[in-house]
């Protein structure tokens, strides 16, 4: 194997050998795996991965390099990357840089040569946990101690860290205010393409400020961390959505709506991360293949969401039965746990954007193409 010896160490003491092409300082984070076959660039730039070390189950990563168009935020957001093999030479007509160089420029450590399947199976059995990528033949007790001193994901508010600092607007049409908890760029693209003017606001923007913007609809974005730690958002949501403002939430936004209306969220053993999760729309029994990236979920099932009688469950995950979509029984509020904006992943759920447009009384200006 080329490169210097390196390893991934988990908080339960298990570790996985690999190698590093470049030298780096130890990088800490919650170790999670994603099963996306393609779309590593979108994954690594997705702000929902903030503070996480991502294990790619697809073994050959970096084959098509990186390019300026597939960024879901301004920079890689992950704390570290674990792969079986990192491509040496990218090949794509769109590539402007190799993945390895790009991550190095952003200071994100990569470890390759790891038995990523063994690591994935371990995470599946023991759950996502804290870990560290570091150089060396084997972990030292000091490093282990440092790892155990890191905060765990539960109770962590990362959304405010991932959010924009200043509001900005894009597009033309009915006005949608979008709360940015770590929003992916393609959501903004999809909303503007659907025919909205989108004003993106910081996560802690008070409801009064939003009302001043006179929105026709409210959007609650995806984002990293524990939804229960984003308590400042609940009141805002209740105040805006609860008064009948059409509202659409994705991922963290979905969880926040669940919490705001009385539901609970919990940390999942190892989460859902990938682009192949089957979700059933309980209203017409159609199955959508969806992109997912979440470690927490709204608790509930086909019968509803305990504590939130106003909400009904619209979508369920076919693999484990978890809640994937909900809507308010009387108000124009709906949300999905998965990512209809894809990027990366399948486009089956694109129609949710048109659904949102309908709920704010507008027609989508044209068929949505998103990032294609």
């Amino acid at each position, binding site marked *: *194997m080329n490169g210097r010896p390196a390893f991934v160490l988990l908080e339960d003491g298990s570790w*996985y*050998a690999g190698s590093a092409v470049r030298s780096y300082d130890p990088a800490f984070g919650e170790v999670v*795996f994603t*099963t*996306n*076959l*393609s*779309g590593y*660039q*979108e994954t690594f730039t997705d702000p929902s991965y903030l503070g996480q070390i991502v294990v790619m*189950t*697809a*073994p*050959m990563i970096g*084959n*098509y390099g990186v*390019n300026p*168009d*597939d960024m879901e935020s301004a920079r890689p957001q992950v704390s570290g990357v674990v792969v*079986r*093999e990192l*491509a*040496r*030479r*990218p*090949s*794509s*007509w*769109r590539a402007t840089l190799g993945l390895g160089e790009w991550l190095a420029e952003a200071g994100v450590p990569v470890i390759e*040569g790891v*038995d*990523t*399947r*063994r690591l*994935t*199976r371990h995470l*599946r059995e023991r759950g996502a946990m804290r870990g560290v990528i570091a150089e060396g033949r084997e972990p030292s007790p000091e490093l282990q101690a440092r790892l155990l001193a890191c905060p765990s994901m539960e109770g962590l508010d990362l959304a405010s860290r991932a959010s924009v600092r200043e509001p900005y607007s894009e597009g033309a049409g009915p006005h949608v205010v979008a709360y940015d908890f770590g929003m992916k760029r393609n959501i903004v693209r999809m909303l503007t393409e659907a025919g909205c003017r989108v004003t993106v606001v910081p996560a802690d923007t008070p409801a009064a400020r939003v009302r001043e913007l006179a929105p026709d609809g409210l959007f609650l974005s995806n984002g990293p961390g524990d939804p229960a730690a984003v308590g400042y958002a609940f009141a805002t949501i209740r105040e805006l959505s609860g008064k009948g403002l059409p509202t659409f939430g994705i991922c963290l936004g979905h969880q926040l709506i669940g919490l705001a209306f009385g539901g609970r969220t919990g940390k999942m053993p190892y989460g859902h991360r*990938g*682009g*192949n*999760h*089957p979700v*059933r729309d309980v209203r017409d*029994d*159609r*199955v959508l*293949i969806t992109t997912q990236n979440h470690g927490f979920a709204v608790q509930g099932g086909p019968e509803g969401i305990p504590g939130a009688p106003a909400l009904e469950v619209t979508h369920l995950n*076919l*693999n484990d039965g978890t809640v994937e979509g909900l809507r308010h029984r009387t108000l124009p509020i709906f949300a999905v746990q998965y990512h209809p904006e*894809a*990027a*990366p*992943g*399948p*486009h089956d759920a694109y129609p949710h954007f048109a659904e949102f447009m309908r709920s704010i009384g507008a027609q989508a200006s044209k068929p949505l193409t998103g*990032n*294609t």
Partner: protein
Amino acid sequence: MPKRTDLESILLIGSGPIVIGQGAEFDYSGTQAVRALREEGYRVILVNSNPATIMTDPELADRTYIEPVTPEWVAKIIERERPDALLPTMGGQTALNVAMALVKDGTLEKYGVELIGANERAIRIAEDRDEFARAMKRIGLATPRGRTVRSVEEALAAADDTGYPAILRPSFTLGGTGGGIAYNREELEALIRRGLDLSPVGSVLVERSIIGWKEFELEVMRDGHDNVVIVCSIENLDPMGVHTGDSITVAPAMTLTDREYQRMRDAAIAIIREVGVEAGGCNIQFAVDPSTGEQLVIEMNPRVSRSSALASKATGFPIARIGTKVAVGYRLDELPNDITRTTPASFEPVLDYVVVKIPRFAFEKFPAADPTLTTQMKSVGEVMAIGRTFKEAFQKGLRALETDRPGWTTAALASDDRLEDGERETVRAAIGRPTPERIFQLRRALEVGLTVEEIHQRSGIDPWFLDQLQQLLEAERAFVTAPLDDDAAARDALRGMKRMGFSDRQLAALRGGTEREMRALRHRLGIRPAYKTVDTCAGEFPSSTPYLYSSYDEENEAAPAGDRTVVILGSGPNRIGQGVEFDYCCVRATLAFREMGYRTAMVNSNPETVSTDFDISDALYFEPLTLEDVLEIVELEQPIGVVVQLGGQTPLRLAKGLEAAGVTILGTSPEAIDIAEDRGRFEAVARQLGVQQPPAGVAFSIDEAVAVAARVGYPVLVRPSYVLGGRAMEIVYDDNSLRSYFARAARVTPEHPVLIDRFLEDAFEADVDAISDGTRCVIGGVMQHIEDAGIHSGDSACVLPPYLITDAQVRLMREHTRAFALKLGVVGLLNVQYAIKDGVVYVLEVNPRASRTVPFVSKTTGVPLAGLAASVMVGRTLDELGLHDDVLQPYVAVKEAVFPFSKFQNVDLILGPEMRSTGEVMGIADSFGMAFAKAQASADGALPRGGAIFVTVNDHDKDNVVPIARRFHGLGFKVLATEGTARHLRARGVPAERVMKVYEGRPNAVDLIVSGEVQLLINTPLGKLTQQDDYTIRRAALQHRVPYTTTLSAASAACDAIIALRSRVGEVRSLQEWHAMAREMSAEWIG
């Protein structure tokens, strides 16, 4: 939506014989479909003419018809069985074409049979290139510019529009038959005629060439509720211009960004909806411009395919099974994922490994054929390999091919890499032309210093793949000097190489030692493969299905269990001489072992097969069949023994090595196998038993060969020692020909002696299949060849029971067979070949293993020989099994061989001692004539009921053809003949019309064939020295689908068949009914 309850019985159409472009993959899909339907309680009626398949085993379907897969015969089955529905999507293009014909002629409507899986409209849109292009336009997708033409003139006009090179794609042919690439007007004219002829509807698409674009395929599945999933993406290493069946392909796609992949996925979903596959699977091909990302839709197949079989094996998602279930009404989310068993089938598999498929070719059998790979498929089989990286899977795949390459290596001689020499310019020129050897030429190109960029420019292969190859080369160079004396350093170096898929043999060659020493070093350092599971979900969910592949990673997931494991070695890639029939044997035996309570572990590398379906064995190891790979599995599994006698030569070759490593071989010992294969030792045994052999000798030089030939007497049969399928075997009539044989076909050296046998001209040949428990031997069947001696047994038609051999001779062959079995100590199956000349029975060879004819015999008699072989291998006696002598059956079965001649231009279609058939069919009836007629119809040579026969035979056959011609004349056929033959016939009272030879003027013989005035051609050539004229006539018959025969015995049989066809209505009957008749006749029947 649960399953449909308005259907009770369903007819499934199989794909018929194995031919290039339609292989064993349809046995796999058809078998899955039958099992899936029966699980649901439907009554399943199956028709397939191919006896070598698992699907035609009588236990599988409720009613199994081994009858011709043609509209005429399938209609008879429909009339008899009155099925409620017809599932046409599991039997390749053959089944779709038959189904469409039955729609068009009103049969389905008449009997109220519903098409399920794909409807008429979907099949038509997918097949008709113009309709397809229009459909794509409707949904905003682009196809390559092109036009469907019906004449040469239209084609030329169309090419003016598309420009050259132009791609030709005949409509409704399989494996791209008749297609090609025309680089100029002349080539177009030549190709278009053939394409128009071969298309059953006489139309060809002339299309803009996108040679050099990247090629991708998606496997798509849709249910009746409009849920669609993409099962697998496949990327071709060889760019557009090479048929996907001939390309090295990789799953999942390697070089597509998510944005491009999702665009393709969106297109695929739109396509399956627009074409209207309501409930089933399809395969869609795309081309991508490497410099702009522009995507074009190339084609879609609304059925399972070779690619879907590959995708099923690559992902663990059983496409045919799920496709069948949705065809009878289930929704994808109502079906379980059969691997995880906890998640539903409405998902898209994700892979945490890389799959590489590599085709296997047979150009050595067809020296006159052009080995350039084009849009018409030419490969005869394939391997699949799984690794954690491309490099690992690629190298595993190359060694799994069994073409004597231990990985990605060059041959010692440049000519073996299809190069004049190893010079830089030669190599650079060569890599622009795709051939089976190009992948090795690429290595030479890198070795002589061509850059990845240059190679990409010349070959069109994506630089990412070329860089992977470059990395292999660099790793080798580093390994040559890597320090191996220090254990830690050696461990790093070796593990790194193993992780890139290098075999012990390759590593040993790099360091100058033996494979065994390298393995010993590796074991001492503790470097062992870890077996990973193919689980459809990249480890996200637990999976209990042990579908395994090796890699040099850390965690081993294989869980050997108990002390009753049997390892069964499969037969590797299909090739001429080793096909689906051996897979049949392996599968039957595996199922038998399981029934007896053994745990079975299957090892095989062939994705087309039933044996590599994950629910056939208790554990499936998708691995190359090399000594290294098998030994690692055996050490892990610790089986009671390994079965080598059922998979053909592939496992047999490993027997000695396994035994030397202390592995127990179940059944017949490697020593007995060696006696049978070693010329000298076998002669001694035959002598002891008093069995006659043709005079023979061994020669170590050309002069010696001439001397041996003089001693045994011409004609002689000459061949290199240790050959498979009659490789380089020829019949030679004099010294000059013998010398020229060595110049042309084979080397002779002290290390590579040749075997020279007296050739028994005009002898009958017979095959005997038998089973022995070591103390008693029971005959399975005695088959008489229809063609005379000199034609490879795999290429000869044969009949069971014999029809022209005396009872005394049959009795003698049975006695000899028993004597050989007991003398050699055979435990399991054996096959003995005999020749009978002038009343004397000679033994030609004894093969103490499963033969090609085992499934044919079993289908005929109803005795499951391969399963019984499993029983005797673990110690059961034939007495315990209740197996007595072979069954008498009140009916006749004929096996006929099927050849790939139409796929190779410039290849003559005469038969000889070198096997060249790719598949076989069976005809079964209550008379020889009808059985032969059915077999011919199944082999795409349906015999005429009247018209004209055209006879042109060599001098040797002139007398013998007279009675045959007289019979045809008596039947009212017009007899046409070339001058010499015509004069000979007329002089003996057979009115024969003279036809001009090609050089004599026009209209000549070829003109008559082209214009449809000949209904049957009887042409016998003399050895290899055939005249151009004969050759032209035979090719014309082939191209215009005029039935032909190149032997008089077959001509005589054809006459019998025509009498049968004319005198009575051809009846269909299921195997279950035939076997019931045999059971009534024989009290001792078992099965």
